[in-house]
C-alpha cells in the first residue's frame, strides 16, 4: 500500500513521451566529466507517476478537504481564481531577467502590491524580497543592525524577545549576530512591563514581538512598550504572522513599530503548499528605508523598473538570486484586488468573530481557557491540563483523536508557556456550522477520554497510519530509500 515510487520502478522503463529528441551531433562535453553511475531516479511510466502521486495526495489533510484550525498559521480558503490568474502563461514563462520593457504588466502588479501593503501596515517603505516570514525577520533585524551601525553605535548586542514568541524570532536574531534576551509574560498574557524595563539598556538593539501575540491576545500596553524601547534607543520589530486579526483595524505603524514582516501565505491567502512557498515582505518606517533589501520596483513617468544597488547604496543587499517568491506576491496582489478595502477589513472582523465565538462555545462546554478574562484575537488557547490530570489524556491525544473526526488538529504545545495547550485559529472563511461541529467533536472526545481513555490515547485510528514513532525516526535515521537487494 505505501510503496515508494522506487518500489514501483523497473530498470529500463520510461515515460516515452517525456523523452526529448536528441540531435545527431551531440556536442563535446569531455568524457572524463561524465557521471559513471545512473542516478537513482524512478523508472516508471507516466501513468505510474500520475497514479502514485495522486494516491499520495489523498493521504493529506488540507484546506480544500478539512477544517484546519492550526493556530498561528491562518489556514484560510485559498481562492482558486487567484491561483488560476497567477498561473497565466505570460506570468509563468517570464524569465526573471526578461527586459523591463517587455514586463510592464508584471512590474505594475508588484509595484501596486508594494503600495497596498504600505497602506495596510501603516509603514513608509517596503521590500517584497523576503521569501517567508523568517527571512523577513532576518531582513528586519539586519536593518536594525545596519541602522545602529550607521549611527556608529556598535554596542547594541541584544534583541529582546517575549517568551511567548515564535521560534523564528530568537533564531532570526541570532542569525543576525545578536544575543537573545527573553522577557516573561504576565498572568493575563501581556508582557511583564517591569521585567521589560529591567532588561532594556544600552545593549538593547530592539525588541521583536507580535500583536496580537501568539497567546491569542492583544498586547494592551503596546504604546508603553514602544515608549520604553524607543527611550532606550532600541527599535521595535513586528512579527506580522498575526496580522489577520487586525487587518483594517489597527496598523503596526501606528502602534509604534519601526519594522515588520508580513506573511502573505497567512494573511493574504496564498496556499501553503504542504510547507511553502510563502512570502515575507518587510516593511519599515522612515528611519529604516535606506536599508531595505533588494530588489524593489519603482515607477517613473508611468514606467516601472527594478531598483538597483546603485539606487540603494545602503541596502542590506539581496536575500535571493532574483526577486523573491514573485508568484506568491502575484497571488497576494490578486487576493487584495478581489477583497478590496472593505473585504480586507472584514477579514479582521470575521476572523475575530469566529475565534471569539469558538472560544465562548468551548468555555460553555467546560473547557479551560488559558486567558479566560481576555477577548480572543483571531485565535485563542485552551489547556487540556485539567483533563490530563484527571484522565491522563493529554493535548496530543486530543489532537490526534480530532483527526479521526475529520478535523485537523490545532497547534499543540506552542506557545511553550501554556501547559498542554491547543492554540486554535478558525479563520474567517469557516462557517458557524463548521465551528459548531468542531466543538461537538471536542466534547465527544472528552467523553471518550472519560469512558474509554485508550481510544483517545491510541488515536488516530482512521488515518493511513496509526500513531508514528518519532523517537525511532530520530534514533534510527532512515532519510532516503535504499534498494533491498
Amino acid at each position, binding site marked *: 500500500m505505501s510503496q515508494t515510487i*522506487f518500489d514501483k520502478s523497473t530498470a529500463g522503463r*520510461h*515515460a516515452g513521451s517525456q523523452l526529448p529528441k536528441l540531435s545527431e551531433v551531440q*556536442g563535446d*562535453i569531455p568524457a572524463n*566529466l561524465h557521471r*559513471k553511475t545512473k542516478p*537513482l531516479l*524512478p523508472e516508471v511510466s507516466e501513468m505510474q507517476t500520475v497514479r502514485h*502521486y*495522486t494516491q499520495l*495526495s489523498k493521504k*493529506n489533510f*488540507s484546506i480544500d478537504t478539512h477544517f484546519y484550525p492550526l493556530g498561528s498559521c491562518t489556514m*484560510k480558503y485559498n481562492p482558486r481564481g487567484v491561483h488560476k490568474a497567477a498561473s497565466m502563461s*505570460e506570468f*509563468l*514563462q517570464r524569465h526573471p*531577467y*526578461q527586459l523591463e*520593457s*517587455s514586463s510592464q*504588466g508584471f512590474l505594475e502588479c508588484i509595484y501596486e502590491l508594494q*503600495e*497596498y501593503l504600505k497602506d495596510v501596515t501603516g509603514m513608509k517603505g517596503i521590500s517584497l524580497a523576503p521569501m517567508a*516570514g*523568517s*527571512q523577513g525577520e532576518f531582513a528586519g533585524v539586519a536593518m536594525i543592525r545596519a541602522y545602529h551601525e550607521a549611527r556608529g553605535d556598535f554596542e547594541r548586542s541584544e534583541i529582546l524577545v517575549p517568551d511567548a514568541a515564535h*521560534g523564528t524570532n530568537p*533564531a532570526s536574531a541570532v542569525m543576525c*549576530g545578536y544575543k537573545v534576551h527573553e522577557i516573561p509574560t504576565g498572568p493575563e498574557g501581556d508582557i511583564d512591563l517591569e521585567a521589560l524595563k529591567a532588561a532594556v539598556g544600552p545593549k538593547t538593539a530592539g525588541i521583536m514581538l507580535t500583536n496580537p501575540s501568539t497567546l491569542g*491576545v492583544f498586547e*494592551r500596553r503596546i504604546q508603553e512598550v514602544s515608549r520604553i524601547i524607543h527611550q532606550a534607543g532600541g527599535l521595535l520589530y513586528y512579527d506580522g504572522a498575526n496580522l489577520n486579526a487586525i487587518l*483594517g483595524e489597527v496598523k503596526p505603524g*501606528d502602534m509604534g513599530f519601526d519594522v515588520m514582516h508580513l506573511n502573505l501565505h497567512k494573511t493574504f491567502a496564498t496556499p*501553503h503548499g*504542504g*510547507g*511553502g512557498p510563502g512570502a515575507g515582505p518587510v516593511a519599515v518606517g522612515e528611519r529604516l528605508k535606506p536599508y531595505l533589501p533588494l530588489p524593489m520596483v519603482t515607477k517613473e513617468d508611468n514606467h516601472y523598473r527594478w531598483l538597483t544597488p546603485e539606487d540603494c547604496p545602503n541596502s542590506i543587499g*539581496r*536575500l*535571493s*538570486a532574483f526577486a523573491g*517568491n*514573485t508568484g*506568491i506576491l502575484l497571488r497576494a496582489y490578486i487576493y487584495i*484586488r*478581489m477583497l478590496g478595502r472593505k473585504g480586507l477589513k472584514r477579514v479582521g472582523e470575521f476572523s475575530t468573530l469566529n475565534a471569539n*465565538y469558538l472560544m465562548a462555545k468551548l468555555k460553555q462546554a467546560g473547557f479551560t481557557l488559558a486567558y479566560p478574562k481576555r*477577548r480572543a484575537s483571531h485565535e485563542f488557547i485552551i489547556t487540556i491540563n485539567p483533563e490530563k490530570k484527571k484522565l491522563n489524556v493529554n493535548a496530543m491525544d486530543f489532537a490526534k483523536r480530532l*483527526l479521526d473526526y475529520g478535523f*485537523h488538529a490545532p497547534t499543540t504545545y506552542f506557545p511553550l508557556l501554556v501547559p498542554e495547550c491547543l492554540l486554535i485559529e478558525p479563520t*474567517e472563511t469557516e462557517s458557524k456550522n463548521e465551528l459548531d461541529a468542531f466543538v461537538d467533536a471536542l466534547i465527544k472526545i472528552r467523553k471518550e477520554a472519560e469512558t474509554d481513555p485508550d481510544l483517545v490515547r491510541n488515536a488516530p485510528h482512521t*488515518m493511513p*497510519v*496509526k500513531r*508514528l514513532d*518519532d523517537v525511532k525516526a530520530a534514533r534510527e535515521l*532512515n532519510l*532516503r530509500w535504499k534498494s533491498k537487494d
Partner: protein
Amino acid sequence: MPFIPHTKKDIEEMLQTIGASSIEQLFDEIPKDLRSGELKEIPEGLNEQQMMRLLKERALQVSDDLNFIGAGAYEHFIPAAVWDITSRGEFLTAYTPYQAEASQGTLQLIYEFQSMMTSLTGMDVSNASLYDGASALAEAVLMAVRANSKAKARKILIPMTVHPAYRMTVKTTVHNQKIECIEIPYDPKSGVTLLETLQKYNGQDIAGLVIPYPNFFGQFEAVDALTDWAHAEGALAIAVVNPMALAILKEPGVWGERGVDIVCGEAQPLGIPLASGGPYAGFMCCRQEWVRQMPGRIVGETTDKDGKIGYALTLQAREQHIRRSKATSNICTNQGLLVTAATIYMSLLGPEGLARVAQQCHTNTKHLVDQLTQISGVEKVFSGSYFHESVIRLPKAPSEILEALALCSIQGGYDLSKDYPELGNALLVCATETKSETDISLYACALEQVLHANKKKVSELKTVTVSEN
C-alpha cells in the same frame, strides 16, 4: 462577502453566544487611539470575473518572447502531469506536515525527493528544501562554519564564477555573523578558477571553499582539484550545482579523493516554471557526518504503533520551533510545493529522460553559439567546453542589442557588462531543450539584422513551423 460565509442570522447568533453587541465590541481591548481609519490605497474589490479580465490585461503587457536567457533560471519543458498533480488541493493547501498521520502524502513525497537528490548529488542526506539556490548557498556557508572543526575558521572562499546574485546573497546573510567572504578571481582565458589562484590561501583559516558547477559562465571548474585542495586545507568543500547537469555530469559525492561535504543549488530546472524568479526551491545535501548541522526540515522513515512504515519530520531538535535561538537556521516555511513539482518531474523523466534533457540543452547551446559566432563581430569569450550556457562578445553594448532583439520577440540573454565589466560587451546565452533549430536560426538571423541590418528577414523565418524540435 467574498470568502466569508456568515449570514446575518449567523452573526447575530454568534454575537449572542459571545455576549457582545457588535463585532466592533470584540476589539475593545485595543486602545481607542490606535484604531485606524479606512484603507486608502486599496481599490474597491473585484469579483472573480472582473479580476480575471484585469489580470489578463496585465498579462498582455508581459511579452511572450523566445527566451535565450539562462543565468540561474532555465526554461525547460514541464510535462502537464507535473502541475496537474502538484495543484491538487491536498498538496496545494496543506500546511507543513506537523501532524504526521494526517500528512503522509507530503511526508512520503519529501522522503522520495530526499532519495532522488542524494543520488543525483552523490551525498548521504538531503533536506526538504530551502528558499532558493542563492539562500541555500548562504545556509551552506553558515553550515560549513558551524561544522568546521577549526573553531576560529570564519573565512569562506567564493570564486567570482559563482552567480553574482548568489555572492550578494551570501554576503548579506553571513556578514552579520562576522564571516568573511573572499572572492577568488577567474582565469580570463578559460573562465574558470585556477588552482594557482587558491594557493595564496594555503595554511590560512579557511572554513570552506565554494565550487560552482557548471559555473556562472557555463564553464566546467576543475572540481577534483578544487575539492582536494579544500580538504588538504582543512576546509569544507561546498558544491553549488545545477541539478539538471548532474544527470550527465560527475556527481559531487565523487569529486576528488573524498567527495565534497555539502552540495546545494537551485531545483528550478526540475519542473519549476521561470515565473519571474520564484517561487523556486533551494536544495541542500551533505555527508552523513554533518546531518545535525543541516538547516531546514528533514523527513525520516519510521513505523507506527502497528509496525507499519510511515514518515515523519525528524531531527527537529535542529530547528527553530524546538531549539529557538540555538537552531541551525531560522527557516520555517520552505518551498514544499516546488519540491512536490520537482519530485513528480524527476519521476516522469527518470534517469534516461533527465540525461536526455541535459544532453540536448548542451547540444542546442553549442549550436546557438556556433551560429551566433559566425556573425561578424561576434566572438566566443572563453575557451574550453561548457554545459548549456556560454559567453559571447558583441560589437556594441549588450543592453542596446537586447532591446533591439526584443522588438523581434527575442529575449537574447543576460548582459554581463555590469557584473563583469572586464569582459567588455559580454552576453551570456542559453538554449535549452525547448529550442528548435528554427528558434536558433531565428535568433542568429535577428542578431545579424540588428548588427548589420541586412540578409534574410526575420519574418520570413518565422513562418517555418516551429514544432520540429
